[in-house]
């Protein structure tokens, strides 16, 4: 009876897997066919290409100003976040009620977390903006004044990255002032390890849960992005670099995760 149940479950799993693969094939077929149609047969395909080209050119021409606006926005966010953290620190020193303490510490964690996300968003946006003109061909072929603007944009880009780095150090130092048990030199390459070692078991569990969620998110996203990169390469000849990069990330993430799990089990057996 039990065996029948297991067999039934096995068959259902295989059937489910087959149906998922079939759905993926149909979706892939429609995606490929649709893109091919857009590229060759329909005026819409040309319109999309022209719009993308216009967008890249538009960003390229205004790169310096966009990077400058992002830099100012980054300063405003960072200074506001640090101001908020300082205010919470002062309130934490005076608070006696435990529920209020919990709420304030949650607010602090939230600002710290959001600031981390914001820093990453600004860095990624800066890279995307810069990549529209990050080419020797572009620099060689543009007018002198455009090249100077590009150079000025590069300076803003570098300053933004420096500022974000300093901003992250200031935020971490503020956290370490509030929680002196938190260790680690933010400028050190070993910071993440030092920080983790100074966390207690509940904090470590939260970090591990967050890391596993991030791993699951990446491992689900990577096949989709790789498939898209392959379709774009087939239809629009976007090059194999994107596919190679994604494949490397996919491989590194999978190997690191499996190796980490195996080493942990191995340590326990020794």
């Amino acid at each position: 009876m039990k065996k029948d149940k297991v067999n039934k479950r096995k068959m259902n799993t295989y059937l489910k897997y087959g149906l998922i693969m079939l759905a993926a094939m149909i979706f892939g077929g429609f995606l490929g066919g649709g893109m091919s149609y857009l590229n060759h047969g329909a005026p819409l395909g040309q319109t999309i290409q022209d719009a993308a080209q216009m967008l890249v050119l538009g960003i390229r021409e205004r790169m310096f100003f966009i990077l400058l606006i992002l830099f100012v926005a980054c300063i405003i966010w960072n200074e506001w976040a640090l101001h908020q953290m300082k205010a919470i620190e002062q309130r934490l020193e005076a608070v006696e009620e435990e529920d209020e303490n919990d709420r304030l510490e949650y607010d602090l964690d939230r600002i710290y977390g959001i600031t981390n996300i914001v820093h990453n968003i600004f860095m990624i946006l800066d890279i995307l903006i810069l990549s529209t003109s990050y080419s020797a061909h572009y620099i060689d072929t543009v007018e002198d004044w455009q090249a100077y603007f590009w150079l000025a944009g590069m300076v803003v880009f570098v300053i933004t990255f420096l500022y974000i780095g300093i901003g992250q150090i200031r935020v971490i130092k503020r956290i370490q002032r509030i929680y002196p048990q938190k260790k680690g030199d933010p400028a050190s390459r070993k910071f993440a390890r030092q920080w983790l070692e100074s966390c207690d078991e509940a904090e470590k569990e939260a970090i591990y849960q967050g890391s596993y969620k991030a791993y699951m998110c990446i491992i689900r996203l990577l096949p989709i992005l790789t498939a898209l990169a392959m379709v774009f390469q087939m239809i629009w000849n976007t090059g194999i670099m994107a596919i190679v990069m994604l494949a490397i990330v996919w491989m590194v993430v999978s190997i690191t995760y499996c190796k980490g799990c195996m080493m942990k089990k191995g340590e326990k057996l020794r």
Partner: protein
Amino acid sequence: MPLVNHLKEQRARLGINQAQMGKLAGVSRQTISLIERGDYSPSVTLALKLAQICQVQVEDIFSYLEDEDEEG
């Protein structure tokens, strides 16, 4: 959650706050708060440490209540 705890009562008996309890147990105040609220189940080591601080048996702080749904 089938794990119930009386850490808050035991801590009140000792007359110490969450931060002091955390310091004695070598964890943060937040972790003590999470345990008291039932949002975090501590490791056996930490549970024993807390019992030692309160000078009681671990069962006096933590007890496991069988979930009726799990039996079926």
